[in-house]
């Protein structure tokens, strides 16, 4: 799922400065799971901003709160319509997708990002998330025993390891395991070491050309518009 981190309070406060009535919108999916932008965090942020106002002695903003199930689907974003009639700006605690989805739907309203979206990752333990997928469009996991070299190797190389590995850790971050040592060990366990002995061509970056779009023809009917 998508993992993000809340922006510092000062930064958010600076962003909302020109606006009076602010609707803080949370997301009920990824942002709730990583406890960054769900129902609880939205309420907390509204309080923290109120507190900041109080200590600064200003009373510029009024905060309203709402959470939708998923900000990345237009039908859910649509549900915000009535609440926006009395709003000057939206502060979204959804990932970058959510911010843009709201902005696209309500293009007359400034929509501000309350979080910094970090990566697609998995939960390692309560409160700890690791990136696992770079959405490279060319999944290579068959050759590396299920360990992604793009996200877990600092240099993202395909013919690893480099010489910078020490004690099984990466030269760039001594707390991070060297992905290629992991890959070697895993392939050995799977009796597939010939895979690491193979030469891998340079990556194909074509799938990563931006802006990216994917159409699933099984679902898509040309000519039909969405709400």
């Amino acid at each position: 799922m998508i993992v993000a981190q809340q922006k510092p309070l000062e930064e958010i406060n600076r962003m909302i400065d020109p606006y009076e009535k602010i609707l803080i919108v949370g997301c009920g999916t990824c942002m709730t799971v990583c406890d960054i932008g769900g129902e609880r965090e939205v309420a907390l942020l509204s309080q923290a901003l109120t507190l900041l106002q109080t200590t600064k002695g200003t009373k510029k903003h009024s905060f309203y709160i709402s959470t939708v199930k998923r900000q990345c689907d237009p039908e859910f974003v649509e549900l915000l319509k009535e609440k926006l009639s009395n709003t000057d700006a939206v502060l979204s605690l959804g990932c970058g997708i959510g911010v843009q989805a709201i902005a696209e739907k309500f293009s007359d309203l400034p929509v501000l990002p309350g979080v910094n979206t970090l990566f697609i990752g998995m939960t390692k333990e309560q409160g700890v998330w690791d990136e696992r997928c770079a959405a490279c469009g060319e999944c290579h996991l068959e050759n590396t025993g299920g360990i992604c070299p793009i996200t877990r190797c600092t240099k993202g190389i395909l013919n690893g390891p480099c010489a910078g590995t020490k004690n099984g850790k990466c030269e760039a971050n001594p707390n991070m395991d060297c992905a290629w040592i992991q890959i070697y060990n895993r392939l050995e366990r799977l009796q597939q070491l010939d895979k690491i002995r193979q030469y891998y061509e340079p990556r194909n970056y074509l799938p990563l050309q931006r802006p990216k779009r994917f159409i699933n023809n099984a679902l898509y009917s040309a000519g039909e518009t969405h709400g």
Partner: protein
Amino acid sequence: MSTSLNAESLVQVHQSSDRSFMPPCQVACPLHMEIREYVDLVAQGRIMEALKVIRNGNPFPAICANVCTHPCEEACRRGQVDSPIAIRALKKFAVEYGGDRMIQTETCTKYSEKVAIVGSGPAGLACAYYLRKTGYPVTVFELHTEIGGMLRVGIPRYRLPQYVLDIEGERLTRMGVEIRTNVRVVSLDLLFELGYKAIFVTVGAHQSLKMEIEGEESPGVIDGATFLREVNLGFRPYLGKKVGVVGGGNVAVDAARTAVRLGSEKVNILYRRSRNEMPADSVEIDMALEEGININFLVQPVKITRQNGKLIVTCIKMELGEADSSGRRQASPIKGSEFDEEYDSLITAIGQIPSLPSDFKIGTGRGSTIQVDPVTLTTNRPGVFAGGDAVTGPATVTEALSAGRLAAKRIVDFLQHKYPEREKDKEAITTPLLEETIVNIKKLARIDPPVLPAKDRMDFIQEELVYDWKSAINEARRCLRCGMGAEITSQDECASCLTCLRTCPYKIPQVNPEGIVEIPVDQCLACGLCVTECPARIISLRKPADYLDNVEEVLKNTRVINNNPLVIGFGCQYGIYGTGTLEKLWESKGRIQIIPVLCVAKIETEDILRSFIAGVAGVFIAGCGEYCAREKTAAIILKRTERVKNILKQSGINPVRLRTIFAGKDVDPAKELDKFIDDISRLLLTQAISREVKT
């Protein structure tokens, strides 16, 4: 779910309805008392409120507090962990410390139909109480000179003091119940002629069963019920040095213990089965043994002869066979094992049956008990109801009270021509705790109330004393609060983040085979941690009883005065008013306003922030620390306060203004609090000075 609310009037999104399941104690109690609720109130130190809850479910708590056989304790699931909660003793504590004696019930007569109650045992008195409360004129007829039935004549004074019954009688009279003692009712027709519209027959079971053996009529053989009655009425019969008591129930044990108090040196109980099958209360049996009473198991008298002024009792040895329908093993005599024993007196206590005047003309059944419809308690005579030992045979006080209460309800239905609805019970917890749950619960030993040592009990003064405050509350705190645990209130909004699963110290929330997270109601112990951690805020306790809803009120009503800092504290209710771990807080010098919470782990980050928004100088959180009866609470609240301190820093508030204080062996909460207040005062002074310097 979305809420569009202005943040300043942010209201806690807790459900206010009661979706709890009935706990096993309440199910087992014949009166279905709200035991979980009053035990929790005792644990919090709210004794008078606990008494109110008790009185809601029981008309005579003082009586039950002394003599109830506590089926609730047998059902108590804490027993699976270490020992059951001492519920009866806690009730007694609430009765004494809550001022039960002073409570009067206001009534007035709303109806004209008179009701007659024949018999003033617990069933009769309960029926009178409830009927009178509803507003009906009631007359209680009692054969003896004093009211109480078996309570008065059957239970020894060292278990139930005289004055307890007298107070209840006095209360009933003040309520307007007419009590006529020394009156033998011989005919129900007469009562109807006198204008009574309904009659409740509750004459109890006072007639002792005979052993049906040769020599039973010999002088020196006395039946237990008569014996106890005479002693309670003030007689002091001399039974001689060696006394035998036949039987294994409470009457037999009571008789034996009374005999000891009357001076007999050797008292033998003769019981035909083994200890396992003895129906008497286990604690009573132990106390009897402490007092030097001997129990001969697996013997039964078969003949009595009188010789030289003594009784020769011929007994036969018994052996146990298969279990009967009640689950108890049957005893059969061993041929040729007869033996003789010499006694000065022999008391028989093998059971009682009711005895009804034939003129009552009501149908009786097995054991001479009155036959009634179990739902309406009606006999074969319209307008005549029956309940108590007269219907069930010898049973417990609480069952009788329950029958009396039900009878009152049914009599009202009858008089008002209402259809007698069957009571719909709430869903109940019927399963035991799982091993996986038990292993994570902190083990705490049961604290029993103090009892007079055996040597001081050779009198008829009350032998069981009342808890002291701290012991009672520490005992009440062990309650697991079955059935009022957490519930995911909106599966639709659940993101399946698994936070509740990972937070729970008892590992209760589970992912079911369909991938949906569930919190099994019969395992959850209502600690409330998942409620405060759920990122989607969709978990709430099935029966919230928090003070936290009060935060707004408290903050609204307190004004901030600059040179005398106002400090708000969230303190554990159990620790501050109950167990005493935090009571030293009151010795602190500052101007503090304490908001009690039911365990500090339930304080949400927002509540702390709200206090700062309202302008307080400082916030402290006082928890029980190592004395907490729950798990992980200190760690959770520390994590939470770190979060708040972070936000405070970013909001321009010095994080020093938030402090946690945990009770501990070497910690003086008052000193910690004073230090905190000093730090804040210094901080405010510095701020004030720097403001002055600027201007």
